[in-house]
């Protein structure tokens, strides 16, 4: 049932809106292979082309060039209503004139399936999405989270080849978003349908995906598992977009060991940078640790913020410059004061060399 999705050399150029404007190259030479049953997230800032890519897969936009396959079948000339790739819309797009049952059953009722089977499938999916007992409610009587579930139920009841999600959680409040994220991941695992999921929220992407595709300016910057993308971003853009970053100047020393300011890292860097080369390294704020003890680096605290689970410090490190430090469990040691001079420790394997371009 579930099919791999293969995208080859896909481009989308939107014509200029008027005489003065220029055309927009929304998606550029995208190649992607999504395994059957895999959930892949398209992550990027607004205008990066992720939604356009999704809409081309759904058949709502026409590619300027390139090919889209579901399994071995070329989909380019298949109209949107024949693609069998159901979508959960950002606005939910629930039919306002139909009740929950008819919304969920809309697609099945168009097919030549017996009424009893249709009803069974609807009932089953309503149960799966926690909507039992709401079948006859009008959409206007539903809360945001319930509407979200109807949109989800409507998509999976079709048992499609591919499931598409277009920022499905962006209209929910933070608490509900966390909860629905877990539910969607759970449901996707259970039904095992190949899924593409568009979001601009990196936490959402990391928590839900098998793999993440980071996009910027219509181009894929990196494809990788959440931990790969976080720990070894392919570019400065990816590093900055996925999580918070300190970019520090470093020199490659003997045996590939990095030297950052006065600190020499013990572990050799696995990359292939030449000795003596000046590079930029990424160090995540949580890989830095402030201490009252003597350490390789020293810095003065410029700003201190208590955030509960962590404390965030802005520290001016001697010979390096300003860095952000996330200190875990600040309750244990108390908040350090602005103006204090502290030792700064680097976690092992903390540094990752980034290039400014892909």
């Amino acid at each position, binding site marked *: 049932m579930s099919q791999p999705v293969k995208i080859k050399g896909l481009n989308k150029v939107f014509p200029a809106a008027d005489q003065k404007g220029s055309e927009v190259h929304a998606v550029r030479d995208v190649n992607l292979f999504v395994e059957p049953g895999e959930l892949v997230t398209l992550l990027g800032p607004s205008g990066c082309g992720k939604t356009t890519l999704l809409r081309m897969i759904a058949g709502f936009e026409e590619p300027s060039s390139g090919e889209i396959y579901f399994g071995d079948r070329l989909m380019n000339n298949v109209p949107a209503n024949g693609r069998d790739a159901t979508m959960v819309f950002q606005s939910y797009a629930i*039919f306002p004139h139909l009740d929950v049952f008819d919304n969920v059953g809309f*697609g099945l009722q168009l097919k030549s399936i017996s009424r009893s089977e249709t009803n069974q499938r609807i009932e089953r999916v309503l149960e799966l999405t926690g909507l039992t007992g709401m079948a006859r409610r009008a959409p206007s009587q539903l809360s945001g989270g319930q509407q979200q579930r109807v949109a989800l139920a409507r998509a999976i009841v079709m048992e499609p080849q591919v499931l598409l999600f277009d920022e499905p959680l962006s209209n929910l409040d933070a608490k509900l978003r966390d909860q629905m994220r877990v539910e969607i991941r759970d449901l996707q695992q259970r039904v095992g349908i190949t899924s593409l999921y568009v979001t601009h929220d990196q936490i959402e992407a990391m928590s839900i995906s098998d793999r993440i595709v980071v996009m910027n300016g219509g181009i894929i910057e990196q494809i990788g598992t959440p931990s790969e993308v976080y720990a070894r971003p392919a570019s400065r853009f990816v590093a900055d977009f996925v999580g918070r970053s300190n970019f520090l100047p470093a020199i490659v020393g003997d045996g590939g060991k990095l030297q950052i300011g006065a600190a020499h890292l013990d572990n050799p860097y696995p990359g292939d940078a030449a000795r003596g080369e000046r590079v930029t390294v990424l160090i995540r704020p949580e890989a830095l640790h402030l201490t009252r003890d003597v350490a390789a680096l020293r810095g003065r605290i410029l700003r201190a913020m208590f955030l509960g689970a962590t404390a965030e410090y802005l520290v001016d490190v001697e010979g390096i410059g300003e860095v952000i430090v996330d200190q875990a469990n600040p309750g244990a040691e108390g908040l350090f004061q602005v103006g204090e001079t502290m030792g700064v420790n680097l976690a092992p394997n903390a540094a990752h060399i980034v290039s400014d371009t892909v």
Partner: protein
Amino acid sequence: MKSDSRMSLRILARDPILLALVFVIFVSIALFVVYPLVMVFLASFQVRGDWTLDNYGLMVERRLYRTALWNSLSVGAVVGILGVVIGYVAAFVLTRLDVPFRRTLHYLTILPIISPPFVSAVSILFLFGFNGLITRQMLGLQDFNIYGFHGVVWSQVFTFAPIAYLSLRGVLASISPTLEDAALNMGASRWQTFWKVTFPLSLPGVASAFLIVFIESMADFGNPLVLAGAAFPMLAPQAYLEITGSFNLSRGATLAVILLLPSLTAFAIQRYYLSKRQYITVTGKPSTSTSKIVSPAMKWLLYSFVVLFGLIVVLFYGVIVVGALTQVWGFNYTFTLDHFAYVFQVGFKTVTDTLIIAIISTPVSGLLGMIIAFLIVRRQFPGKSAMEFGSILSYAVPGTVVGIGYILAFNGPPIILTGTLIILVLAFVFRYVPVGIQSGIAILRQIDPSIEEAAQNLGASTLQTFRKVTLPLIAPAFFTGLVYAFVRAMTAISAAIFLVSANWNLMTVQILNQVGSGRLGVAAAYSILVIVIVLAAIGLIGLFVGRMTRHSSMVRF
């Protein structure tokens, strides 16, 4: 650009039904909107088959035609101004002020829109004519003459002010009262607030309403025919007289072209200039706050003005009812059913003819309007803006021009339709479809396109999407389109009068004949029957559309 249209053609080719639909609509617009107009233009440059400018030479030379043009333009301008003043006051009072009987006054104010074209003219004759109730019997005037400029103007103001009211109502309702509150808060007086905030914001709407009334007045046929009189020629009736009186088709066509030009100009200004300058302060939820910019004295003054208009409506219709039920107006007020008996015995075929034509053209026009609106807003295909223009063009074309165009176009090969039912139905469908299209487009633009995408995404074809999702969502526009098509089919005269025949005749034409032969009582009886049928039909259409879209009333966008 070229690759765009090639791409949209490619997409279209994948959906044969859509492709066929677009093709059929293009062909019908070309055939039934554009082709007749072209024939009018061609005929205006011909005399007995020879190409010439003689017709236009005559227009300049003859005083009759020059006067007719001047009269039509000046009546249009005066009716436009008066109509907008009445419409503005009524819209302001009924949308912004907290006054009693707002609903009743609203319905009274728009009642003239659904009446047959001669109601106000006949009422004016009953009240102010040679045997008029007011002029002769109450004031004892012997030589008062209602015919001419003032007669036409009063009758048209009564007929068209409601249109200005409806248009301005939307404009005033969309201006957020908080803007007025803000001005008052910054120290502006009420008068300053009105002139510096409310009025400027509504100005594009005012100009637009003026042009709409101007177009209606230029195109109006019924009122001038009854009330202009021989000494006050006007373009629309003159074109009719040239054709039916002196069988001079080419001169009628020339007058039609002259009639068409100011209307098209006004339409172009209204559509391509003003409509882009409407200020709409959408806040999402309709504001119920009432305006604080009028003093209580002013409020009741304005209110009494609106009540006065309502009372005039009641008076005009009351007069028609009395006229239909009494022997001879002005001489013998004894009760009688003779006029209705005449309608049901002698003239009943006209009633059934009219009903058949209206019943056929209403659903066709209503559905076509929704389909065209759907295609224009939601589908990409080459020539889309041409389709939009062509399909709403007929709104700006006076009925007289359409009527002349249809006889010129369909009187001979390749398509012969004169004297048939089809020609009347086609004229009505394409003439009255623009209102449905416009309101369909307006509503559809406010609906999130992903709702229809969702239907497609779940496997619905274009037709299924339209029938199961789009149409229920735009039900209010569908209702408007159906009602408008039916009302106009029941009350139209200007185009239809050229197209009726012994086989297929219309009640409005009958009313005109009765007025022409002085049987005002029978005319009044016909008018009442038309109004009753129209009101019943509006109720039925409302029920039908309501059933079709049971659930949508639960949802407010």
